[in-house]
């Protein structure tokens, strides 16, 4: 077994981030994080990436030197009491972190004895925060809270489903949720409950009123579905509706259970007049997409979904991979026949090298692959977590369903070269000036100006050695402007030579002037 392991980046978050995604997605649920100071970074994820307008519902019960020496129980009890008084939540989740797991303190015992005095229900996730990763922890914790609150309910009159999966910090999951709600409404199926996003204790109690559970993502939610099946006899579907075939499969399975004919809905979206077909079959897409070589890497659901989708529009997938290594066989089977190779691996460097060696026309991956692709000068589309603030768009940008597919096609369209453009480039070569060329040009200008020195005409400004060094420190894309501005300033001031003195004075002058406007 591998012991200490070298990692540059993590594809999956930790158990702590998984529990926080579930608990943080639910109103009136507050999480007390039992860990060292740095573990409070969960707050930053919610307030920055999800642009929270409220303080994220997480409070750190910090472990410092004192807690290590004297035990952390007193501090934890104090924190839980304070959280209850300040926020009056329905549920307080007390979670360990990697570090605090090592201290092996019995959080359950604290919850049990303290729970008698609090109005809030205290829940300790049954994870090993040190061993488990994000999705496993989400899966298990979601099942745990469902088991805690779900009770037998009469079925709703109309055929309804529960949507299981949407949560904060998921990849476009809140947009997917809206898309799913619209789609279900269009085919005449009601939504009974959504978990964990927006779910209250009341929502959890009402889960069993639905006729069917829909587990939207392979990464988590199945354990909760399994629990509801075993305990309450609720059936579930576990298909991520991404791409034409998987969406069709999803709809048909759903229609069968609900006794609804979904064929008109599918036909309407795949009809020649629909946007999907108009794009896929257009002459422009033929030349710009057909036969292009792509690679795909991401979590399970999105990597499988993107592989399907690409094949469905005529793009060749050289290899498709996931970092969810525990599901290697299942993944390989899911993409069999769609790609030359299934590549299951959680080492960022290995994925990066594979992209370099493949040299595809386009990369579909996580933010990490976006960086790798940039290094090799390849276009990339992000289709999966880990994500960046860029992947939390303000305008609805679903991935699931037919509209999600349309949206992805638009993104592809904006990323690659269009049909005629590509023809021309192939015939005549690139006409744009690359960054490195620009850099060379800018540097050459500066150097030649300096070399021209005193012998040059009245318009030439001499830069002394130190000043030239400072100029070279300016990023190349603004260097030319800085050089021009500085020289103009020097002339205005009646200087014959640019020295550091002049550079700094010019900088102060322009910076202060620049702020007067509407910056």
């Amino acid at each position, binding site marked *: 077994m591998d012991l200490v392991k*070298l990692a540059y980046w993590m594809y999956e978050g930790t158990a702590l981030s998984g529990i926080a995604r579930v608990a943080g997605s639910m109103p009136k649920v507050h999480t007390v994080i039992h860990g060292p100071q740095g573990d409070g*970074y969960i707050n930053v994820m919610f307030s920055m990436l999800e642009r929270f307008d409220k303080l994220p519902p997480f409070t750190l019960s910090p472990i410092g*030197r004192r807690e290590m020496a004297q035990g952390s129980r007193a501090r934890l009890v104090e924190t839980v009491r304070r959280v209850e008084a300040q926020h009056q939540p329905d549920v307080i989740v007390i979670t360990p972190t990697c570090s605090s797991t090592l201290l092996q303190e019995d959080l359950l015992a604290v919850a049990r004895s303290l729970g008698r005095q609090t109005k809030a229900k205290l829940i300790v996730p049954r994870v090993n925060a040190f061993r488990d990763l994000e999705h496993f922890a989400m899966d298990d914790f979601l099942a745990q809270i469902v088991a805690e609150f779900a009770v037998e309910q009469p079925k709703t009159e109309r055929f309804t489903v529960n949507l299981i999966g949407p949560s904060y910090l998921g990849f476009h999951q809140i947009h997917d949720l809206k898309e799913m709600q619209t789609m279900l409404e269009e085919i005449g199926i009601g939504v009974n409950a959504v978990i964990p996003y927006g779910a209250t204790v009341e929502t959890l109690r009402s889960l069993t009123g639905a006729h069917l559970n829909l587990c939207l993502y392979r990464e988590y939610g199945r354990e909760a579905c399994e629990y509801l099946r075993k305990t309450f006899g609720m059936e579930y579907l576990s298909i991520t509706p991404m791409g034409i075939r998987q969406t069709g499969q999803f709809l048909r399975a759903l229609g069968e259970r609900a006794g609804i004919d979904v064929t008109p809905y599918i036909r309407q979206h795949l009809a020649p007049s629909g946007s999907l077909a108009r794009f896929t079959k257009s002459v422009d897409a033929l030349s710009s997409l057909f036969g292009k070589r792509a690679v795909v890497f991401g979590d399970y659901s999105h990597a499988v979904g993107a592989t399907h989708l690409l094949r469905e529009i005529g793009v060749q997938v050289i290899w498709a991979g996931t970092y969810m290594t525990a599901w290697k066989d299942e993944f390989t089977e899911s993409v069999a026949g769609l790609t030359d190779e299934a590549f299951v691996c959680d080492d960022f460097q290995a994925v990066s090298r594979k992209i370099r060696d493949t040299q595809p026309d386009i990369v579909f991956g996580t933010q990490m692959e976006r960086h790798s692709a940039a*290094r090799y000068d390849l276009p990339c589309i992000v289709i999966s977590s880990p994500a*960046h*603030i860029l992947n939390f768009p303000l305008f609805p940008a679903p991935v699931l369903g037919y509209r999600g597919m349309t949206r992805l096609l638009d993104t592809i369209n904006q990323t690659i070269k269009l049909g005629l453009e590509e023809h021309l480039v192939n015939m005549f070569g690139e006409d744009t000036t690359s960054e490195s060329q620009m850099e060379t040009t800018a540097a050459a200008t500066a150097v030649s100006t300096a070399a021209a020195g005193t012998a040059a005409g009245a318009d030439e400004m001499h830069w002394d050695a130190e000043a030239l060094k400072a100029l070279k*420190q300016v990023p190349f894309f603004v260097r030319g402007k800085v050089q021009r501005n500085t020289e103009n300033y020097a002339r205005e001031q009646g200087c014959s030579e640019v020295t550091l003195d002049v550079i700094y004075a010019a*900088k*102060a002058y322009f910076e202060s002037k620049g702020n007067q406007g*509407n910056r």
Partner: protein
Amino acid sequence: MEGIERENGCFHTFCPIASVAWLHRKIKDSFFLIVGTHTCAHFIQTALDVMVYAHSRFGFAVLEESDLVAPSPTEELAKVVADVKAEWQPKVIFLLSTCSCDILKLDLENASKELSNRCGFPVVPVSTSGLDRTFTQGEDAVLHALLPFVPREAPKAEVVEEKKRSWFSFGKEEGNKATAPAAPRRNLVLVGAVTDSTTQQLKWELNQLGLDRVDVFPSGDMGNMPVINEQTVIAPLQPYLSDTLATLRRERGAKVLTTLLPIGPDGTARFLEAICAEFGLDASGVAEREAQTWRGLESQLALLRGKRIMFLGDNLLEIPLARFLTACGAEVVEAGTPYVHAKDLQEEIARLREKGVPVVESPNFAAQRERLDRYRPDLIVAGLGICNPLEAAGYTTAWSIEFTFAQIHGFVNAIDLIKLFVKPLMKRQALLDQGWAEAGWIS
């Protein structure tokens, strides 16, 4: 210390391992290896907004469950170090410890020695556990770990010759005395990991004042660290380097200047004057340079005068920044900061006391929120995790982390510094003018 309130709970700050985000760029040919858990790795990539630099000279030796019973981390780390060596060919590896190393009581000191011997280059242990330290103190820990690579004496060709001579003239004392070197020159070392252009600017200011040689620690190159000994005058550039400064005082006998930090025209002027006083230089030009810099800031100053500004406490730069703001004519209603090193910052704190600025060490965030309602500040300087909610509540905020990454030292950068405060205020005004007042939350 008198005049400093102390609370218990500044927890909205980053962990010290976040220092790698800029230090690996400052110290060339280095590799930063963080020995920690998955959480450490996840924190760093989140803190850097999922990889500002995807392919960078830092990585994680992630502890797995089976390591908990390993007798020594050396063998496990050796494999990781070998991988790093193959991929990056570093001249030095910094081995950063985390909370989990502390909890597991991993002996990284000994492991580092053993690994240095095997690698043929230094593997340097750095204590960056969040149990003892806060955010920017990670930089102090790294600089402190670099001190063994700082020479006490400058290597001199003559010294080698002298040795030879003394070997051959063994026993002839007179000959030795005759070649004894002249009294060694005092040297100035600026201490703090700031950008090359910032040090270039500070050097230039000092050159203008007549000091030709100015050294900088850390140097970007491991093999070219400045000489520090009893003749050295240390001028700190950052307020959070107390361990490094204490060791330089104690082990090198260097003189550490206690003055204002060169942040803002006021701080820079006092900083330069203190150096001039130490080296017997004429500092009369400094006042004019300061006045000239203030004049350059005039249009920005107009926007700051009378504004109420509150620091919630994050990156330990709060004290000098609050001092600069009061000099700008702003009213600092509270300077919250995770930690105050009273000795190194005594001049800074004295300034704040003169102006009656409340300093709160390790502030309690819940209590601060109540004070916020009372102060109604025009601007709040706070950590990344709380700015968006504060903005939504109608406050105007500045990210404290911007001050960590921006170039804010010296006269030349004073304009960049002041803009970090003025920009959010101008943005608020722009939004107000453009119709956002109707929403009600901005007024």
